[in-house]
Structure formats: structure tokens, C-alpha cells
């Protein structure tokens, strides 16, 4: 938003973008300053994208963009024009359409009690997905490295290790 010299205000400038979100194409008019995280939450209704810091530290807003995880609070929606985005909601839809159950990573988090308040959980699930796609059988050190960009304030991480190991085992089978 800017004012000109006389104090009148410009119309809010918008741009049209087209993004494939969880397999569906979404076209929207957005302000250039709209964060990708806010676009996904407010325009696409995907509240599973959580916002914990808006400065790239906590990882709650982690989504997959063109096959790589990104912190969606650190980029703008216009930068995702033409991209494919997957959020935690997409993960379940995939699994549910097959057999009505949770994705193995979600299931493992549930079974091992790897979530308490759950505010970090979407981010951890997405980070785990990338980790296991790259490394189907990670060691504890590799898990640590893979999840180092996500903060959980509740669980002390112990059960998150277990969840990742259990999911890895499940997904290898």
C-alpha cells in the first residue's frame, strides 16, 4: 500500500496466479505481498498449514512445492504461480481415496504419540515425507538432520523419532 503526494491511496494492486494445490488447479487474484502461507490458509481454506513464526524458524508452515519442502511463510503466493503445492490435507486425501485410512506417516505419528498440541504436526509430517522419500531407512542422525528445521515445543522429539522409524518401516514394506 502506498500513498501518493496528495494523500490519496492507490487501489490495491493484484496479480492473477494459477497454482495446483493438492492436485487441483486454483486461479486467484492476489496481492504481490500475500504470503504463500496466507494464500493457502485463507484463499484455499487449507488450515493444516499452520503459522507459528512467519520468519522461517519454526517450520509449522512447511508444505511441498514442486517436490521439495518449503516454508510457506517465507515466500509470496505470486512466486508459486505455476507451481504444484501439496499440503498435509493432500496427504490424507491420497490415502483416504485408496482405503479410507491415514497416510502411513500420519498413522505412525498417531500410534507413537508423536503429537500433543499438534500445532507443529503438519510441518513435521511434511518434513518426514520428504525425508523418507529421499532416504527410506534413515538412522537417528539422519532423522535429526532431516527434521532440524522444525520446532516442536510439546513432545521433546522422542516419539517423533519413533514415528519416523515406524513410518519408514511401514512404507518400505
Amino acid at each position, binding site marked *: 500500500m502506498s500513498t501518493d503526494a496528495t494523500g490519496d491511496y492507490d487501489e490495491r494492486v493484484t496479480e492473477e496466479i494459477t497454482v495446483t494445490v493438492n492436485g487441483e488447479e486454483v486461479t486467484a487474484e492476489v496481492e504481490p505481498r500475500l504470503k504463500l502461507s496466507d494464500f493457502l490458509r485463507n484463499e484455499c481454506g487449507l488450515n493444516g498449514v499452520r503459522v507459528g513464526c512467519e520468519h522461517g524458524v519454526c517450520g509449522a508452515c512447511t508444505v511441498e512445492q514442486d517436490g521439495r519442502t518449503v516454508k510457506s511463510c517465507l515466500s509470496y503466493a505470486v512466486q508459486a504461480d505455476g507451481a504444484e503445492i501439496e499440503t498435509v490435507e493432500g496427504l490424507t486425501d491420497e490415502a483416504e481415496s485408496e482405503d479410507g485410512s491415514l497416510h502411513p506417516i500420519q498413522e505412525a505419528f498417531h500410534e507413537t*504419540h508423536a503429537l500433543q*498440541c499438534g500445532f507443529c504436526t503438519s510441518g513435521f509430517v511434511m518434513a518426514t515425507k520428504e525425508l523418507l522419500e529421499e532416504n527410506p531407512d534413515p538412522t537417528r542422525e539422519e532423522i535429526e538432520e532431516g527434521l532440524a528445521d522444525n520446532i516442536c515445543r510439546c513432545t*521433546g522429539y522422542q516419539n517423533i523419532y519413533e514415528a519416523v522409524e515406524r513410518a519408514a518401516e511401514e512404507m518400505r514394506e
Partner: protein
Amino acid sequence: MSSSQPSETDDVDVEPETETESFTGTGLPRVEDRRILTGKAEYIHDVTPENCLHMALVRSMHAHADVVSIDTSAAEDHPDCELVLTAADVKAEYGPMPVGIPEVETDDGVATLEEWSLADEKVRFVGEPVAVVVASDRYAAEDVADLVDVEYDPRDAVADGMEAREDEVLVHDDVGTNVVDGERLEFGDLDDAFEEADHVVSGEYSWGRISGVPLETAGVVAQYDDETDSFDIDCNIQLHTLVDEMIHEPLGYDADDVRVNVPADVGGSYGTKIGIHRYCCLAAMASKELERPVKFNEDRLENLQGGDMHSSDREYEMRLAVDDDGTMRGLDVWFVDDFGAFPRYPVNQVLKPLSVLTNSYEIDHVGYEYELVLTNKTSQTAYRGFGVDPHIYALEMIVDEAAREIGIDPTEFRRRNLITPDQLPYTLPSKNIYDSGDYPATLDRIEEIIADERDGGLLDPEVVAERREEGKYRGVQPSVIIEPGVSGSDWTDRQRTENDELEERSRDEVDELPEHLRATVREDGTVQAYLATDSSGQGHQTLVSQLLADELGVLPSDIEVDYLDSVDAPTEYGSAASRMAVMLSGATVGLAERVGEAAERVAADHWDVSTDDVAYQDGAVDRIGGDESLSLAELAAVDAERDVEDRELTGVSYNYDHPATEHEEFDEAFTRKFPVYPTAAFGANAPIVEVDSRTGEVDILKFYTVRDCGTMLNPMIVEGQAHGGIAQGVGAALLEEFGYEDDGQPQAITLFDYLLPSIENVPEIEMEHTETPSPYTETGAKGVGEGGMIDAPASIATSINAALEPIGADEPADRIPVAPDHLLEKVREAEDESEDDA
């Protein structure tokens, strides 16, 4: 009372294990998880009603300044601006927010302390809200906020608790002093103890300003209803049935006209969110003005710098009187707690340590003195441990120091002074009572674990020597630490009562704040239960469905658990102070009994027999001596035919009284000013630390812990609580701090500066449990929510002391967090000294 064997609780079993098909005591996976994992859980940030407007705050960038003028005209000219509010608007229509210490005695009478939701003539901390703006969305609201022109006249600030005591800069001019509260309590014969003891050891310890910092920030959606002149306030405040007065009082409305509702899912709180009422008030005022819903989401910068959410910030001076044989004779505690600009609700944070005054040690003569000072920092709120964590830390530090000075092995010194099982229940000098447990056995067990590590493990002498060659020092120092559980009653109010008034007080005048639970049997035979508290990740819905299923003899899946808002729920305490395992389980047992009795009355009525001729069991009422039986579904159908007011199976409720109320032993503490926490969970930690003497960095190689919280209702949840608490303890001990410049500018306003422990910082935790049931509680459970945060910082600190013992460093962990630069200085000092000696 017998202590059971250590139990392995790693297995998560969905099926009940015992023949009686009990779900209680098993790690039943949580009912909360699915909605969270699929992204469908609705946290407060996700609540955006139609037609909703968005609020942003203009905040002070000065730590201390006079507000000369506020020009809102440019903001109001902005096309997206809906409303601007300043203190003048607030003061014209509303009242101030309640403060923890409303009146301060001064040299010339009594001065009142007032806190307004927007700063008026002066600002007292960086981030203090000065104006509200409301616009169509948050982006626009921030644009508008930038256009509010506030002219300040900066003053000198005071940002250090010890300095604030000098009163050179006054945070509240009218009050005339920054020391707004203080008291000295003495138990036993302190002077004699210190005079007669062979040694008096003293030390100074500092606990840096830290807090819970949940991943979800504060949020509120307020909606004013013109027709009924009332408010609906959705928010993530903690203890909404207790602290709702912090919202309706400033608004000037009755409790019934301000409906405070907390979503089922809150993204963590750990005590901190009890202090978010300012936002609730402001959003409510804006909503009333605009007659539209108004939403506010605090952002992280606001949260860290001026979110009213920091916690304990203390300087301690400790003295311990000890005899040559290692007997602890007396303890004298003095500390200053820097509360920031306003003394809010957590003023009891300075007194809660009385509930574990001497930790696990028998010390009969104790002094306890505190000063509560105000500075130009954001105000304090509660945080897991509620002030006990710094006390335990300072106490374990002076114990370490005393062991060193008198030349006893620090573990042996501790062991000699431990309260023994035959002394339990044990009444502390400060009148709280430890219920049950075997502290020496717990110390023995953790010592065994350490002995194993000394034999070919992390602490093997050869390994330790090798690491030393590289400048890396390993060590560990355990102690047994108590977690006081289950606050209740009204000591919050009593704390502010004059002593002579308290003398007069009888036991009947104590307000006990029971735990309320309610249930309705639905026509399909399932049970809808309602909690009168809020949750923020503790799994209360799971716990209640698990326990209620057992008590009613049905399946957890037959029970659904929901939440009551502040109007529908009675005023009660709620989730804090390690209460819920005990209070909810007690309430569940009582509620199930009530439901069973109600079902029996419906059945007896239906068959036209006496209630003596029927019996509730496993989801049905049977007719004794006959073969008739009515299931809960059938009974609900029968009940539904009655008049609404006669229905037995709708809104069945039960209030579980605070467990200490039934035990006269607690009466003395109850009627006086002392905190009553009738369960004493306990544990011993062995964090094996490695200190790099060249960088000052501390690596925790492994964290062993042996814990006992009485009967474990859901071991999976219990362990999760311990893991989380320990991780927060690691953060407190090594990483986290809200530092301030001398001029009151906060140094930690992003998560790049306030360092939350990541998966790389939290060591592997290996946990064992014993189960010594509490004799005072319905299910034998003890409070369990805060333990790790209470015991881990002290254990890490003493272990760092132990690691650097070989180089003769002087109490290296004498300040929390133990930052690398501080340790480096300690190492250098020790090196200089040894050079001088040489």
C-alpha cells in the same frame, strides 16, 4: 503404601491388557489425533466468521516514555480503516484490567496500581499497546497501524531487577517504589540453626527470563450482540472458566454476558496463555463499536517482545547451614523476581515454592524471603512449574556448593539428608505434605544407571580421560526432585489477605474450586461428556473417555468428550498446576457413579420397582433376580419421554473436591497463606553432559530419568508430558533467554534470538517409572504436567558443575541459561587461579 517395580511402558496397546478389560493404565492412542493429523483441527487462528474484521495494534518502541500526543487522522483517512481506538476511548467507556497487586503501601498512604488495555499517559515497556486499529484484513490493518502517529518523550528506563530496587527510575511514579511486594517467612528456629551449625555456605544464583513460547500465538475472535448486549469471545486463553473475570470485569459486564469459549485444540500454552486477556478485551471493545466480529492474531514478534508472556526472572541469594557430618540444619532463601511493568495474576509464582520448600531434604529451619519488583519489561505470566523451577535450581546449586566446601561427595551429602519412606506422609516446615514415595530408592536406582555408564559406557574412566585430552569434560550429578501437584483452593486470594485477617479465618471459609464434569446419555446409548476446562495438548478428551469407559463398562469409542464455555461451566480452576490427572480422574469416577445411579432410577421407575432391585453394570441396568435388562440406549429412550426437567440422563454432573479438603492434615496450610499441593511426584535425573572447555558449549549426551507420579492413567501420555517438560528444561538450562539492553530494548524478538530447542538440542531421553499411588487421590494418580521443567534445569546445572569439577571452576552453572560465553569465563577464571597457585 508400597512402591511397585519399575514398569516398562514402551508398548502402546490399543487393547486393554488385563482380564477385566481395563483401558485405564494402558497407552490408549488419543482421540484428538486424527483431526490434527489431517489438518482439520480448528485452532483459534482458523476461526474467521463471515463479515469478520481484523485488528492490529500500535505498540510502543520505547521502554519508558511519556506519550505526548497520538494523531490518528492519517490512519482514519485510509480507505481500509474501520476503526482506531486509543486509551481515551477505552477510558471513556471501560475499566482497567485487574492487577495482581492493586494497592501498594507507600510512605504516604496507599497508592493504587492500574493497568489499562491501552497505555495512557506513559508507556512502560517495548511492545506495550498504544492504539487499536481495525481494517478489512490483517495486511491492511498493519498498513493503517503504521499511519498512527504517536509522539513520545523518552525517559530513562530500568531493565534489571536488582537495579530497580534502588528506585532511581520509577516504573509507576505514583507508587514511589518499584518494590511493590515482599515478605519474609520464617519456619523453625532459623537463627539458632545458623549459629550452631559447623558451616554456613552461601551462594548467588541467577535465573534468566524465560517462558513457554507455544508455537501457536494468542488469538481471539470477539463478537458483540447488540440485541442481547452481550459478547461471544472465542480465544485460546488458558483457564477460561477461572480467569474469565479478567475479560468481563474491564468490559464492565456480568460474567453471564461475556461467553468465553476456547476451541478444543489449542497449540500449546504451558501456563502462558492465562495472560492474554488484554487482547480479548480490545477485540471485544472494537467489535462492540463496529457491531461486527473482530479477529486478532498476535504475531510472533508481538508475542516475544510485548505479549505479556515472559515468566520468572530471578536473582537468588541462598544460605545453607550444615554440620560436619553432612546434616543440613537450616536453609535461608532470598530472591528478587522481576515482574516487568505490571504485577499480574502470577504473583503466586513467588510463593508456590513453599509447597516444596526443602525439596527432597529434611531441613527443619527455613527462611524464605522475596521481593517483587517492577521494571520496564513486558509483564510476567505463568509458565510450567510456576516459579518452582528456579527455586529448585537455586537450592540444588547451594547443596552442590556446600558439598564442595565441606568436602563430602555431593551424592552422599544428598542421600544423608533425604526424607525417608518411614517419614511419609511428611509435613514440610511450610505445612504442605508429601504424600508417598521412596526417595532413597530412586537415588539408588539412578546411581546404578550411572554406575553402568562408568563401566564401559559414556562415563568410562578411559573415555573420560581421552575426552579431557581434547578439552572436553564429562560429568553427571543427580538429585531427587519433587513436583508439587494439584493446586486448588483459594490461596491466590489468601496471598493478598492481611496476616491478622488470616488468623481469624476458619477452615470453612476456604474456597476449594472442585473439578466439574457433566454427561448426557444419548439415544443411541453413547455418552456425551463435557469438560469444564480447556486443553492445550494434554489429551484430556482421551483421558476422560478412557476412564469413563472403564467406570461405565463401555468402550472409549462410545464416549465423546466436548468442552463447556465460561457461561455454561461453573467457575472452577481448570488445567494448570499439574491438576488434571488427579482432578479429571477423580471427577470421572464420581460422574460415572452418578450416571449409573441415574440409569438405575430410570429403570426402577420403568419396571415400577425399588432402586434396590436393579443394578447398573456394563452399559445396562439389570433387574435383580429377573432376566430383564435395559441398555443405556433403551434407558435414554425411556428417559426422553419424560418432561425435560425430570430427565435423569441429561446433564448429569459431578464435582470432585480438591483431594486435600478431606484430610485434616492440610487444614493449617489451607487456612493460612501456604500453598497446598497434596501430591508429590518425584524423580531423579542423570543428564550426562560434556562441556567443551574451549568453546563453552554443553552437549547432553544422554538424559536418564527415573520418575514416579503415582498411578499412571495413560502411560503414553505421562511419558509424553515428561519428555516435553524435560525438553523445555533443556531449553531453559542452555538456550533460552529474553535478554534486555540496559535501556530496556528487548534482545530476543524473533525465534532467531529466542532459541527454542530443536531435535538437535534435545538428547535421547531414557526413562523408567515406578508407581507409588497417592493415598490422597481417588485413583492414586499424582500431578504430572510440570515435572520435567521443574527438575531438568537443576539436574543439568549440577551436572555441568560436576563436569568442570576437575579444573576447579567455581560454580560454573551459577546462572541460567548456562550460555557458552559464561562457561568460558568460568573456565578462564579457574585456569588463571590455578596458574596463580602454581
